[in-house]
């Protein structure tokens, strides 16, 4: 094997072919190809359907932007449904962050030595089956469920007269989604608060500011990147949600994802379905770009 010059710098090491086995291309070929073929191309096929280049039935109209323009002008029910889903996801994300913040604060700054055990206790439910957790709420809130049947048997309500809004409503969907995402979001907030320089808090204190002032002027602003990340971490999966609404939402709790799902499975209008699907991807993508930039800027500012 040919000897290269004694390498002191990483750069020379990288340029030596023998040193960089396996080659970068060889390493990346399989994962990148897998994603290209089974992730990017499927999305391109969706794009093709959305403009009628591809179609479910050979008799369909051919290339057109009809469904795009109808959807974007708001002439169909779907735009209203989209905004309703946005409102629901925003509500869920807001509640989750409000619940998770004191939790993260407690674990990172107050709990002391036991904090990892206490954190684990919060995260364990997140590791359990998603369907199971939704199922649990169905069992609890259903019209013959735990709460209502308890009320019947305690004589507080007439049998057959359940509290109607407990299940198949927007309330239920929001409650269940909050339940599902709280453990997950405690994590980024915890990490941000834990990495705070505690000497800053003490300095604020020593300078005579009371705890609330220190919190609002120092701790909270410094933890904003974690809060923003947490918000996005909940918002993105909930905006495309369709399983939870279909199990506990009924017609009132229907979300955008349900419309997409039913257009492909029951309605068989793949063109408008593709329009909605691609629009959702675009919304999520733009959101990621904005939040990515925001988070990076914040990181630079705080060093």
């Amino acid at each position: 094997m040919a000897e290269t010059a004694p390498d002191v710098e990483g750069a020379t090491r990288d340029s030596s072919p023998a040193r960089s086995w396996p080659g970068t291309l060889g390493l990346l070929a399989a994962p990148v190809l897998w994603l290209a073929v089974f992730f990017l191309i499927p999305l391109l096929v969706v794009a093709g359907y959305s403009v009628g280049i591809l179609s479910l039935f050979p008799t369909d109209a051919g290339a057109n932007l009809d469904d795009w323009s109808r959807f974007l002008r708001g002439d169909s029910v779907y735009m209203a449904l989209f905004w309703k889903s946005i409102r629901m996801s925003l509500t869920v994300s807001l509640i989750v962050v409000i619940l998770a913040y004191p939790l993260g604060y407690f674990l990172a700054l107050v709990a002391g030595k036991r904090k990892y055990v206490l954190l684990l206790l919060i995260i364990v439910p997140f590791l359990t089956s998603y369907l199971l957790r939704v199922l649990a709420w169905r069992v609890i809130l259903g019209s013959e469920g735990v709460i209502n049947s308890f009320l019947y048997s305690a004589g507080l309500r007439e049998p057959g007269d359940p509290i109607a809004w407990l299940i198949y409503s927007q309330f239920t969907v929001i409650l269940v989604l909050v339940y599902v995402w709280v453990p997950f979001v405690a994590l980024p907030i915890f990490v941000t608060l834990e990495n705070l320089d505690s000497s800053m808090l003490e300095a604020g204190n020593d300078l005579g500011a009371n705890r609330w002032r220190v919190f609002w002027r120092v701790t909270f602003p410094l933890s904003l990147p974690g809060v923003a990340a947490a918000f996005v971490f909940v918002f993105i999966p909930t905006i495309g949600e369709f399983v939870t609404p279909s199990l506990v939402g009924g017609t009132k709790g229907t979300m955008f994802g349900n419309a997409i799902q039913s257009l492909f499975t029951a309605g068989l209008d793949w063109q408008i379905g593709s329009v909605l699907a691609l629009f959702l991807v675009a919304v999520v993508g733009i959101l990621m770009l904005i939040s990515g930039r925001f988070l990076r800027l914040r990181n630079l500012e705080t060093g």
Partner: protein
Amino acid sequence: MDAAASPRGRRGLFAFYLLLVLFLYAPIAVLMIFSFNDSRLVTFPLVGFTTRWYGLLLENQELIEALKVSAIVAAISSFLAVGLGILASYAMVRRRFRGKAVTSSLLLSPLVIPYVVFGIALLILFRAVDDFLIPRFGVFFGLGIHVVVIGHVVVSLPYTILTIAPRLERLSSKVEEAARDLGANPASTFIRVTLPLLVPAIVSAYLIAFTLSFDEYAIASFVAGDVTTYPLFLYGQVRIRIGLPQMIAVSVIVLLLSMVLVAGTEIWRRRAESRLAV
């Protein structure tokens, strides 16, 4: 003086923590109680204690079949995802190349795709493929286990990278250099030095991918064809409200198994990594 909270504040925060723990565990506890309740209906008042729902599981062929399908899908898809994840992590951590930022965005992008969109995308891709293949060659790709595996590999891949790459980053390249200086060729350095040091992270990544796949409903609901995975079976039973106590019982078993598995391997991983200490 404690800067983070006053004694009253500390108590308040702790109370809040306990309330949230209650909120998180109560529904799961309710499920467990009803899995031992001697009634077909999941309603109050409780009738009596029984373990028959657990016994009936062993006779439920459809359920066992669904669990088997999910185990196979999860085993294969997480194996592939971890393999691809090791390759990608190694390239991202140990190599410098043009287009690295784009590559990293591509590798992590499945994290943010709504599963409903990815599910339908796979569905119509394979429809289009079959529309092309059938009239020309008389063969077809179809839907089923293989497509579920393909989809699960895509969504698990970023998780395996996020598990393996940080470990590789902490693992000093000096160890690899030392092996090479001692005369090991690059291939045996990778296989005999780098990989063994990565084993704890690889095991974590495999488990994460396995649980993700085993529990995944949304993608499978579009591309499973006439195959039934465990989440699909569970969903169907929940909707038609038949055999609910049995479904709860099997969920409880799966739940306890996954908790033990996850906690166990996490402890094992920490120990292993501190023992390796590189």
